[in-house]
């Protein structure tokens, strides 16, 4: 699979030199309420990026703009060298776990196979090449033993692995992941992030939203602080900078000595952070 990635990079030298994502002067929102204002952002190909920020700060909105799931009110979004939406088959999007119907009668294998559907087009059915790609992806996420399980019977971490397998099976140039490490066990978090690191060192790009600052600091190479506007972009150590945190989270931040505690609205989550930061956030449902 990595051999395939290298050849595709060689085949499209221009695409690999262009930034993976370029957002210029974008304002966007829902109904008449803006969620993002005047956002400029450029993400280099091969980056492993975490978008962090408060609840309602526009993390998921930014991800959806890049995925062309919503259109900006103004400004432009370019993805993989083309206007947003044009390069869709080279994108794999993993939604928040809260948005998935886990009672749906599909197996782990079925879910991973869906990653192959967009590139097949309506006239072709999955063939040997697709089955090989799905099998390889399931092996990489450690789910080959559970391939026949219905997704609802899996643990939270296994569900996330199944969805990452779908993304990997799609052989995308850009991964977009909405809260991929929220509420999963430490082992799963480490495994998923190691896979994404491997994918990005092969030249692909991965962009994830997260409200787990410890995970952002530990596992990502680049972080973007977002609170309706871009607050900061830089190396992952930025999430440990009290000034950046103060500006990103505003009044919801409590700094104790050199530890920051984010006091966001309550709820659910999260097993794992284990770092200094501890905080909670309600999933953004829209």
């Amino acid at each position, binding site marked *: 699979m990595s051999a395939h990635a290298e050849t595709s990079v060689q085949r499209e030298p221009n695409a690999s030199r262009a930034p993976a994502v370029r957002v210029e002067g974008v304002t966007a929102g829902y*109904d008449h309420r803006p969620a993002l204002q005047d956002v400029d952002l450029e993400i280099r190909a091969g980056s492993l990026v975490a978008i962090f920020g408060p609840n309602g700060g526009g993390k998921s909105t930014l991800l*959806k703009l890049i*995925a*062309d*799931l919503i259109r900006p009110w103004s400004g432009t979004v370019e993805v993989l060298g083309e206007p947003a*939406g044009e390069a*869709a*088959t080279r*994108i*794999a*999007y*993993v*939604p928040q776990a809260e*948005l*998935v*119907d886990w009672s*749906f*009668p*599909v*197996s782990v294998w*079925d*879910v991973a196979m*869906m*990653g192959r*559907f*967009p590139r*097949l087009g*309506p*006239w072709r*059915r*999955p063939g040997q090449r697709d089955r090989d790609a799905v099998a390889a992806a399931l092996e990489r996420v450690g789910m080959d033993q559970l391939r026949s399980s*219905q997704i609802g019977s899996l643990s939270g971490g296994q569900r996330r692995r199944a969805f990452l397998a*779908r993304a990997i099976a*799609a052989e995308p140039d850009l991964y*977009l992941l909405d809260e991929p490490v929220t509420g999963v066990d430490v082992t799963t978090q480490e495994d998923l992030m190691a896979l994404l690191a491997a994918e990005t060192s092969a030249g692909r790009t991965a962009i994830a939203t997260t409200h787990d600052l410890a995970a952002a600091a530990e596992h990502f190479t680049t972080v973007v602080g977002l609170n309706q506007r871009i607050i900061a972009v830089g190396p992952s150590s930025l999430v440990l900078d009290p000034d950046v945190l103060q500006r990103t989270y505003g009044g919801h931040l409590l700094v104790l000595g050199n530890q920051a505690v984010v006091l966001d609205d309550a709820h659910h989550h999260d097993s794992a952070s284990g770092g200094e930061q501890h905080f909670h956030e309600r999933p953004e449902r829209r």
Partner: protein
Amino acid sequence: MLTPLTEPLAYDFFLRALLASAMVGVVCAVIGSYMVLRGLAFMGDALSHSAFPGVVLAYLFKGPFYLGAAVAAVATALAIGWVTRRGNLRGDTAIGVIFAGMFALGIFLFSLIPNYVGDLFGFLFGEVLGIGPGDLVALVGLAVAVLVVVGILWKELLYTTFDPLGAAASGLPVAALDYLLLALIAVTIVVSLQAVGIILVVAMLVTPAATAQLLTRSFGRLLAVAVAIGALAPVVGLYASYWLNAASGATIVLVETALFVVALLFRLQAGRRREVLNAPA
């Protein structure tokens, strides 16, 4: 010994009814599987009622009822889709308003017809034994068309049903597929009207898929079980209605409902057994 099974086969109308209702059962089971997984059961009920004014108009203008019903149902499907997307209303609200309005329009038009009209009454409750050779050809043609479209787009429809965001981000035309499925539901309802009638179509759509959902854990098997029920229930129902001299559409639906109840009891029983097994010793 076999007389109870072979006797009715001597009648052409019975043979046509068997073929037509089994065909309807299969198409309804396939489309119904997608509907159940998308939570569109209420939509199915709405579309079948919305076909009513089309049927009445076709009758008034002496046009083919298939055409009237199809135009009304497809137009309603698209209108509901459009109002939900653009009007910022919940889907069930849009459905409730439009479906009641369309059915009222049907009754209004119906009441303008001076004399009681038995044919139209047949559309409300179904008249599968009255299907003529020409109707059968039209029915089979439409049914096959629906199955061919699903045969081509099954995987796109599955992906957009399961994860519309992921599917859209990867380039599948989710909005177009949503509208297409609504149109397929509308056509399926039109195909089914003569067999089970406007009021009971929703059962043909939803019950086999719901039963299959109780018994299976993968989409392929769900589809297979739903289709098996969809094909067999009309055969059993028709024989039963023949020997009991009961309404055919209602009997078919009752057979499907009985299978659903059996599946439900089986599922509950299996669940209890699992609880007992898992209980600490």
